[in-house]
């Protein structure tokens, strides 16, 4: 007769280890306080309490920044005016124009681009188990830029074609990196090293394209390359929002197997994860997220790198922290874009300049901190 392992563990377990019983009772408290389980019928979702709180705080902060972005500008509005104009109330046509056609699409795009970048960064940093394994370091963003630059400079194309070029370029770069790094599976460090190499190559390619461009095309290219939301309309905003509505849930769904992959391929496979298939899906979703973001706003620097890391430090989660990475990304881009608009007003900076300089400071701090902790 076969005895099922399950029954054994459950019945024999507590009795067999004498020292366990007392600590067990005292442990039930703290355990239950760290997690929240939501049950409804057959549904049982489990969240880390701290991650829930951090997520709520981040989203509230993002909403506050978004509200501020609707009010602040050369035509300042009170909260009531801004809200009224947003939903078509109020009798100030100018306010309605600014809020509905200029500020709102920009805010929506900023939030969606930020969330997409944050989640994409989370996917790749988790896959590679390396903070540097984010799409802006391993060539995906650079590849998207190459695609867009080719459209701007070689084909003199319009915005839609530029976005299409960015998506195509990003996917091409990702495919190249994936295939070059794949050797009986995908190892994190190979992904990062190959990605950095491909990024350098594409960077050179981008520089070459710009050098050979006409002056006007080079100017357009430079603005695009900085990553900007300055000319965002509802077209871009709705495209990136719709894409996020599809890709975001996909990324959240995949974050469960992703958390298992972080413990090594053998262990994940032993737990019943289809390792290579799930990883391919994750790469596809992650690349799509970053490509959509780049197509909408250009390569906004450092958000994909910093957002998941910042979120992880706040939530202290051992999971992937996909949702909090997305919320953090949204908050970062919203805030950075507000700064970019106002800091030298009326001159508007590209948002990428702000995230780039903030991200640079963050990266230096991160590296210095890691080095101090374990001097190598």
């Amino acid at each position, binding site marked *: 007769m076969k005895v099922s392992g399950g029954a054994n563990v*459950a019945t024999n377990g507590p009795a067999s280890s004498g020292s366990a019983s007392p600590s067990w009772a005292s442990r039930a408290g703290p355990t239950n306080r760290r997690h929240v389980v939501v049950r409804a019928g057959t549904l049982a979702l489990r969240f880390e309490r701290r991650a829930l709180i951090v997520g709520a705080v981040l989203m509230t902060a993002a909403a506050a920044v978004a509200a501020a972005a609707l009010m602040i500008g050369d035509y300042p509005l009170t909260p009531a005016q801004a809200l009224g104009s947003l939903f078509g109330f109020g009798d100030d046509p100018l306010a309605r124009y600014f809020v509905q056609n200029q500020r709102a699409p920009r805010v929506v795009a900023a939030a969606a681009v930020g969330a997409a970048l944050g989640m994409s960064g989370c996917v790749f940093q988790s896959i590679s188990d390396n903070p540097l394994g984010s799409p802006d370091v391993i060539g995906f963003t650079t590849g998207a830029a190459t695609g867009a630059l080719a459209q701007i400079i070689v084909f003199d194309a319009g915005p839609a074609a530029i976005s299409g070029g960015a998506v195509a370029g990003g996917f091409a770069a990702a495919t190249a990196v994936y295939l070059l790094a794949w050797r009986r599976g995908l190892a994190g460090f190979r992904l990062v090293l190959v990605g950095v190499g491909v990024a350098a190559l594409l960077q050179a390619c981008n520089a070459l394209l710009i050098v050979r461009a006409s002056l006007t095309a080079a100017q357009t290219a430079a603005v695009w390359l900085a990553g900007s939301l300055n000319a965002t309309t509802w077209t871009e905003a709705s495209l990136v929002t719709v894409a996020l509505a599809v890709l975001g849930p996909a990324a959240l769904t995949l974050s469960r197997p992703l958390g298992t992959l972080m413990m090594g391929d053998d*262990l994940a496979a032993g737990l019943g994860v289809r390792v290579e298939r799930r990883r391919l899906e994750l790469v596809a979703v992650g690349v799509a997220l970053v490509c959509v973001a780049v197509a909408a706003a250009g390569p906004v620097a450092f958000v994909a790198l910093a957002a998941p890391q910042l979120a992880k430090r706040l939530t*202290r989660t051992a999971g992937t922290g996909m949702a909090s990475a997305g919320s953090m990304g949204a908050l970062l881009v919203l805030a950075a874009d507000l700064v970019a608009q106002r800091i030298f007003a009326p001159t508007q900076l590209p948002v990428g300049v702000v995230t780039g300089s903030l991200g640079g400071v963050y990266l230096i701090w991160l590296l210095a901190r890691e080095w101090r902790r374990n001097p190598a």
Partner: protein
Amino acid sequence: MTRLSAKKPEPGPGGGRPDLAQQATGPSPASERAARLRGSGLAVGYGDRIVIESLNVSIPTGELTVIVGPNACGKSTLLRALARMLPARAGLVELDGQPIGSYPPKDVARRLGLLPQSPVAPDGITVEDLVARGRYPHQGLLRQWSKADQEAVDAALARAGVADLAPRMAGELSGGQRQRVWLAMALAQQTPILLLDEPTTYLDIAHQVEVLSLARGLRRDGYTVVVVMHELALAFRYATHLIVMAAGSIVAQGAVSDVVTEDLIESVYGLPCRLIEDPVTGRPIVVPLEEFPDAPAQDDAA
């Protein structure tokens, strides 16, 4: 002496561990029960390198099978092939009478658990959360945490003797503690078959004994346990079924007392040796014969 008798129920050192004394009291012969896990005509390798070629193996149900053999003989490769981590180039792994590939992966993961050689604990994970990861095959996207999950985790923590470590960070544990935590994770998976790939490597002897006696306790409770390891004295001591491998094939298998001979050890490891009897268990201990220039030449005459 070429063969050692294994039956010697020892009283054991006074006040010592009671489980040591019980150890040699015989399990039922391995061949009598149908094997739930078997491989036939297996060929496995990495890239161009074939490690195992046409190997047949069946893992006796309800036994503590220990696989030993020299470095690079294919022990771990065999284990990984049996756990479908490595695809078989040829041949078939069967689990409960069906090709292992015909099951959905989570279904396999509810029957067969594998603790790999170097699992990675995610940064900042608590012991309890790490053990809870073992519940993955029992969960789904919309069914993330049931009462059974919590009970299995608590029971596994207690069983592996790490309940008091539950709130600690996995990263700050000692090697012995960490290995028991990983074992707890494998136990939380609640699989009747458990494959452990070198669970004792890098542990000091006390922790090796701890891990192996846990494995033996599991076997006694009806688990089928397979352990790959190097330390022969402990392997012989704990195995109820021994598989000896060399150069990608199985050269001997069966009860330790039937299998282990000086000739076998010499032919497998290329090491001339003498077998002596473990004074506690009566199981064999390998004593290498080697020219020691400084040693007093007392034991030369064979």
